[in-house]
């Protein structure tokens, strides 16, 4: 069997937050014991409410944040404890595309400098060769090579996102974390960018961790989908199956709110409204993290924390005590 490009085991990340100067600093547990793997050429979509730790998970995998626990394996190499110097050769191979195409491009750099910077960092090619490479990359992502000396503020949002993608591709990575790469764009541009990402993936056998809010788009681009709630991964499975037959009560609620293109199916579907607020991540419930809002919660759910386990066959996993029977 193929080795997964990325495999994480029980990954944990929490942030210290100061509430008041007298209290002990509290900890926001942004990512809790998350395990998953992504194969070559595969897209894993990651969905969940705002603040559930999707970005933190993506950034911890790339070691922007030092993980507090668990393991990160990149093509079988454990990079969890790697120093900055040790990470250098791996940084080339795992990259990130950002949500905000305005904030993710240094406004003082020209397009050529932006896309060329990764190659400059690794001392790849001569200056002239780099320029040729940059122009090639610009063509790949659908930008005009003669715009190479322009500044990012001279471009539209969609074009800037293309600049960001070209920069990411400059190092020929194998794995890319796409942190909501389309949510800041116009709807008409969104599909262009998604198509571009799919095209590049097919050409280069890339693996994506695709974080998004828009459930429709995630279903379209992802092979598998992971659902996060309060820093926990509560369900993983084939994209279509997670959509059509969600197992976890939270996924059911989430999917019932997703837009359904088929009006007959839409009418037949019941919308599940969740009661109450998301608990404060400073203070996660003792049992199942979802028990405070779960319409089917049993007394047991408030005591025992469910683990992510095989459920419903075909490689699907969910973390719910009710499924264990």
């Amino acid at each position: 069997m193929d080795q997964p490009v990325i495999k994480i085991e029980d990954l944990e990340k929490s942030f210290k937050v100061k509430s008041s100067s007298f209290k002990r600093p509290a900890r926001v547990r942004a990512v809790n014991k998350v395990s998953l793997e992504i194969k070559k050429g595969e897209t894993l979509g990651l969905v969940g409410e705002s603040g559930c730790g999707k970005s933190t998970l993506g950034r911890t995998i790339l070691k922007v944040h030092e993980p507090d626990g668990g393991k990160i394996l990149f093509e079988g190499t454990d990079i969890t404890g790697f120093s900055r110097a040790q990470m250098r050769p791996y940084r080339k191979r795992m990259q990130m595309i950002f949500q905000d195409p305005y904030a993710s491009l240094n406004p003082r750099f020209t397009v050529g400098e932006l896309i060329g910077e990764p190659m400059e960092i690794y001392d790849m090619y001569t200056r002239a060769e780099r320029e040729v490479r940059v122009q090639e990359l610009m063509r790949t992502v659908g930008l005009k090579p003669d715009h190479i000396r322009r500044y990012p503020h001279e471009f539209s949002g969609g074009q800037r996102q293309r600049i960001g993608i070209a920069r990411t591709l400059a190092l020929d990575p194998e794995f890319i974390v796409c942190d909501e790469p389309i949510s800041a764009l116009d709807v008409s541009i969104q599909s262009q960018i998604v198509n571009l990402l799919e095209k590049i993936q097919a050409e280069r056998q890339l693996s994506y961790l695709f974080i998004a809010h828009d459930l429709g788009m995630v279903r379209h681009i992802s092979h598998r989908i992971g659902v996060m709630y309060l820093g926990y991964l509560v369900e993983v499975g084939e994209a279509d199956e997670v959509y059509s037959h969600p197992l976890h009560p939270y996924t059911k609620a989430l999917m019932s709110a997703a837009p359904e293109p088929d009006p007959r199916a839409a009418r037949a579907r019941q919308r599940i409204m969740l009661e109450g607020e998301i608990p404060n991540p400073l203070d996660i419930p003792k049992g199942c993290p979802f028990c405070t809002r779960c319409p089917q919660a049993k007394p047991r759910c408030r005591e025992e924390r469910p683990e992510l386990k095989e459920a419903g066959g075909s490689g699907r996993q969910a973390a719910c005590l009710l499924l264990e029977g």
Partner: protein
Amino acid sequence: MLSPDEFFEPVEDWERDTEYIAMENKSFGRDVWSRFCRNRRALFGLVCLTAVVVLAIFGPMVSPYPYDGMDVAVKNQGSSIAHWFGTDQFGRDTFTRVLYGARISLMIGFVATAINLVIGVLYGGIAGYVGGFADMVLMRIVDIIYAVPAMVYMILLMLLLGSNVYSVMIGICVSGWINMARIVRSQVISLKEQEFSVAAFVMGASTRRILFRHLLINSLGPIIVSVTLMIPQAIFTEAFLSFIGIGISAPMASLGTLAQDAKMQLEIYPMQMIWPVAVICLVIFSLNFMGEGLEEALNPKGKR
């Protein structure tokens, strides 16, 4: 007969692009320069400052009078063809002395600011980027230095090193960099959370590269504005020290000592005071106008 091909030409590729935004293709430096030039006040400041700097450097060289040459026969004269700004109580040519004084004042202003700039940017940049405990220690040190009034350092240095250009310069620098360090630190702290610095980190950029090429270059606006305030401030501090008599000592002269010398006869010969003070004002206004213009020119988001 002309064929249709001669009437029409094919639409260029870029003209078809709906997302294209028309904008001239300019390098960043030229871009800033052209926006700076559109600001009349800033340009006025630049012209005046350049004129003062050029005169201060070359004026004393071509002047027929040495800055310290006394001539009792022509003391306390008004403006004339021979002495443009008149002469002082010892018959020294005021124009030559003002230019010479401007040279010393400007030199102190620029050199002291350059030192403050380097120390402040490095200190603040490192404190802000490293953060955590190191940042806390570095900023407490700054607080301690800042707690003592700057004048105390200056007077102590005068006692230790005597009244000369160097002690004035060091005196200005002891605590002069602190403001810059604080500005740079807060800039760096807010910029390092931005996605472009995370992007640089993910690419594998070194700390030095992230700090200089990403964080500091984007702090350039506030840094330059603060520099254009630091130069006049240094000039002013030196003038003040010399004016109260603990700055530069005779026969050397700065604009401050010239004003100090004229103080005695202010009621009889006010022009002797007005010339050096006017040059101080001109320099300080010019720098402030330039600072304003640069701040606007450096901020590309202000572009239409």
